[in-house]
């Protein structure tokens, strides 16, 4: 088994090297598009933070839950769109992905970063949080972070979508999207995404939403063209 891993890793590295020496295609193709929904998504409820006054006072109107974030024109935010097949795995970038606890919420709600990339977790609140990601493939840990303590630095060595919660504040809920390569995008309020710098080839593009699951489609890129695709999720009313 070890030998096989070495062989596969070696082959991947060779291929990556070959690509690297060929140089990134300056006129690489781009896949762009929009994520929308049909039907009626569940109505998000306002979060009751009365048990944590230091956070509740930061809001004039209570913030809403974020399990489904719908934008104007039936668009969906916080959807991770990524190349799931067709590109080699990328080494982790040296920059850290930052996950901030502010106002007893996670910012961003969905944080995408790469395998073995540094993940920095910051507490800007005046209350203690515990950061409790619940992975199935990676190691599960659970750390306390009282106010004023330094950021927590962690990383994950397997690709996975990981729900994150704070046990002290049960409404706090977020997601880590641990990606294999650098070709990913998290949709904003307008539901759009852009995956750039793709050499010619056939790719599988996957969109993942925390409540609605994932869907994929194959896209072929030739030359420096820009292809527009769309993902439509069926909204669940509950």
């Amino acid at each position: 088994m070890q030998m096989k891993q070495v062989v596969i890793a070696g082959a991947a590295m060779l291929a990556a090297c070959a690509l690297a020496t060929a140089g990134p295609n300056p006129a690489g193709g781009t896949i762009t598009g929009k994520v929308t929904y049909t039907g009626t998504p569940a109505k998000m409820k306002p979060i009751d933070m009365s048990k944590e006054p230091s956070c509740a006072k930061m809001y004039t109107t209570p913030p809403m839950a974020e399990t489904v974030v719908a934008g104007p024109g039936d668009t969906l935010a916080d959807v991770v769109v990524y190349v799931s097949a067709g590109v080699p795995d990328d080494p982790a970038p040296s920059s850290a992905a930052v996950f901030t606890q502010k106002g007893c919420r996670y910012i961003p709600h969905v944080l995408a970063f790469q395998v073995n990339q540094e993940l920095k977790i910051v507490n800007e609140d005046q209350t203690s949080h515990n950061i409790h990601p619940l992975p199935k493939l990676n190691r599960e840990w659970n750390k306390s972070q009282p106010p004023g303590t330094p950021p927590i630095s962690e990383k994950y060595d397997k690709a996975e979508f990981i729900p994150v919660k704070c046990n002290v504040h049960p409404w706090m809920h977020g997601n880590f999207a641990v990606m294999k390569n650098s070709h990913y995008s998290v949709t904003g309020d307008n539901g759009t995404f852009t995956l750039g710098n793709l050499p010619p080839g056939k790719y599988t593009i996957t969109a993942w939403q925390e409540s609605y699951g994932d869907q994929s489609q194959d896209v072929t890129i030739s030359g420096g063209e820009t292809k527009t695709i769309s993902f439509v999720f069926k909204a669940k009313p509950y």
Partner: protein
Amino acid sequence: MRNISSLKFCLSVASALVLPLAAFGQGDQAPAAKPASHMESHIGNLTGNSDAGRQLYFRYCWGCHGPHGDGNGENAPWVTPQPRNFVAAVFKCRSTPTGTLPTDEDLYNSIRRGFNFTNMPSWLALTAQERANLVAFIKTFSPRWVTEKPGTPIPVPAEPKLTIESIKHGGELFQKLECWKCHGQEGRGDGPSASTLTDSNDQPIRPYNFTSDNRSKCGSTNQDLYKIFMSGVDGTPMPSFADVVKPEDAWDLVHYLRTLQYNNPSPELTLWESTPEGKAIVAAKQVKETATGSGFKP
């Protein structure tokens, strides 16, 4: 969830085909490691053997922990908290940092001690060698024991002298670290977040009630208490405080926690009750009526 199952599917395909090209796809990870068929454990001078442990497991353990070690034995539906899942290999009582495997000695101690307030009894009836064999066998259920090493135990420095200042400072830390959010101001396990807590399997779980006993799930000594909040109780809402509490502060917290166990005599409680302040606090906690408030007077 679907993503994970598709990942698993792709993994099995990749491992079956062993196509070097597969390293480019979504489910392209190197084939998943398999658990070892044979394991040893080392506890002091003892060396445990999983082959000998297997026989013991299928006599004493599988009723709850199941034939596959996944915690789904035939008794499991009637057992709360759920029997440990050795396939996931997430362990509550460790001397090692959160997210790491426990040492052989941690597992050995868990079998010997049992888990207070649960269905897991103390296995003092087994010999030390038998317990060591079981530790070795438990490690054949998860590939984590092949791919990872146990964590480096969190150092527990010598306990400093018990003083009133230490207890008081521990009380301040109990406030500052917001232990009371779950454990309650009096340590009764009734803090504001207590009713919302679930473990990593989404099962409801209670925070420890300090007033109920002086034996916590992961041991009854001061060193055990120290380890519990420093290492965290993995798989539960209890986080690790190892990165945020200095060793001397941790000992102050231990001293304070003992005073919450007002039904169980301890040097900490005796010292605390020798001060007027401590005496008043402890006296105020005594339950004078029954839990149902029926007005019973002893």
